[in-house]
C-alpha cells in the first residue's frame, strides 16, 4: 500500500515560515559547510569519533551481557543461544551444498566419459 501524498502544487504563502527556514538553512550550510568538510578529515575528529563509538559500544556490551545473564538466570535461552543454533543450521546447509556440488561434478564427469 503506497502512500499518496498530494503535492501543494506551485503554492506560495503570504506568510511563509518554510521559506524563512530554508533561508536560515541555506545560510548556515553556506557558512559552516566548508568548515565541516575540513573538520571531518582531521585526526582530532577521527579520534573523537572513535572515542564516541567506544563509549556507545561499551554501554551496548554491558547491556547485552546483563540481559543474557538475567535470561540465563531464569532458564530462558538468550540471543547467543539462538545464534549458536542458527550457526549449526547454516553449517548443515553448507554440507548439503557441498554434497550437491560433488554430485554435479560427478554427473559432469560421467557425461564426459559416456560422451553425453
Amino acid at each position: 500500500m503506497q502512500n499518496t501524498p498530494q503535492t501543494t502544487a506551485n503554492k506560495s504563502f503570504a506568510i511563509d515560515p518554510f521559506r524563512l527556514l530554508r533561508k536560515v538553512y541555506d545560510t548556515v550550510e553556506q557558512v559552516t559547510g566548508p568548515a565541516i568538510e575540513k573538520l571531518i578529515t582531521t585526526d582530532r575528529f577521527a579520534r573523537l569519533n572513535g572515542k564516541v563509538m567506544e563509549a556507545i559500544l561499551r554501554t551496548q556490551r554491558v547491556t547485552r551481557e546483563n540481559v543474557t545473564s538475567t535470561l540465563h538466570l531464569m532458564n530462558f535461552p538468550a540471543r547467543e543461544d539462538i545464534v549458536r543454533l542458527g550457526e549449526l543450521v547454516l553449517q548443515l546447509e553448507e554440507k548439503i551444498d557441498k554434497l550437491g556440488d560433488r554430485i554435479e561434478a560427478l554427473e559432469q564427469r560421467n557425461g564426459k566419459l559416456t560422451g553425453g
Partner: protein
Amino acid sequence: METEGRLGRLSSVLEKVAHYSPINQGLSLLEHWLDLVNTVQGSREASVGPTPKEVIWRKNKARLYRYERTTPATRKTPVLCIMPLINRAYILDLRPGASFVAYLQSQGHDVYLLDWGDWNDEDRSLNIDVLLEQYVARAVRMVAKQAGGPITMLGYCIGGAVATCFTALHEEGLIKNLVLLTTPIDFQDAGPFGVWTRPSVFPLELLTSVFPAVPGAYPDVGSKLLQPLPASVGQFVRLEEKLRDERFDVYGWQAMFRWVNDGVSFPSGCYRQWIGEFYQSNKLVRGQLVMNGRKVLLSNIRCPLLNVVASNDVIAPRPTTSAILGLVSSTDKAELVVKGGHVGIVVGKAAATDLWPKVGAWLAARDA
C-alpha cells in the same frame, strides 16, 4: 423563528471568518506540512523492485534472481550483478524508468542479481573468503550453466570489490567481462572514511565483538557524517521546496529515501576483513590479500574491464576507484567518469541518458 435567525447570522459570520485570509493561509501551511510528513513517512512503503524475477538458487539469506523476460535474450552474454553487502539489492531496479536492470534487459541481456539478503548474528563467521567460495562461485557457475558460456560480472561498490577478487582468483574463463560501478580498490587515500577507520582511532575489534552482525545504522551514520547538514536537515528542507512543484516525482523521492535508510547488517567477519585488510592495510592493491589460501593478484585479471567512477563520489573518492586500471593485465580496459555522486550516477535522473547507454554500448561491443 428567532433562534433560527440567530443561527443563520452566526453561520454567515463563521463563513466570513473561515474565509479570512490568515486562517486560510494557516490551513494551507498546515496542509503543506502534512504533505511533507506523509511523504517522508510514506517512503517506508514505497513501491520498489518493479521488474518481475524468479529465484533460481538460494543459500542462507542470499538469493540469486533471474529477471524474467517477455522475449528471448538477443545477447549471448548474461549480466550477473553483485550487490554491496550493506545495501538492499533493489537499488538497481528501483522504479519503472529508474531501473538499470530493466535497461540491460531492453538491450537484450539476460540479467541475474545476487542479493545477499538480510544478514543476522548467526552469520558472524562469514568473511569475504566464504562469500567468494560458497556464494559467488556457485552463483557464477549457475548463471554460466544457464547461459551456456561465460558471463559479464557487474559489481557495485563493495560488491565490485568482491567481483574483482573473484575475477582475480578464477581464471577458468567463466568471466567474460568485468564492469565495476563506483568500486573502491585502492585505500591509500580513501577520504574521510580512510581517516576515521585508521587502526589507532577506530575500535574495530570492539565493534565486531559487540555486534556479531554490525547494524546497518553504523555505516549509515558514517555516510551521513560525510555531509552532516545536507544528509540530515537539508534533505527535508529540499523536499519541502520540491513539494511546491507539481512536476516533482514524489514516488521517486520516496523510493530513494527508502533505500538510503534501509541498510542491512554487515556480518562481523566480513566487516573486520573489509576495514582491516582493505581500508587499514590496503592489501588488495599491495598484492598481499590472501583468500581461501590463494593470493588475490589484480594482475591476474585479463578480461575486458569497464571501470565506472563518479566525479563527486564522497563515499568512494576518485583515488580509491580509479587505481584498478593500472593494476590489471587486461588490454581492453576503460574508465568511464560520470558526473554525479556514488548513488546518483546509477539511479539519478541522468543515469538513463548518460551511464546506462554507455555501459550498454560497451557491453554490446563485447558480446560476440
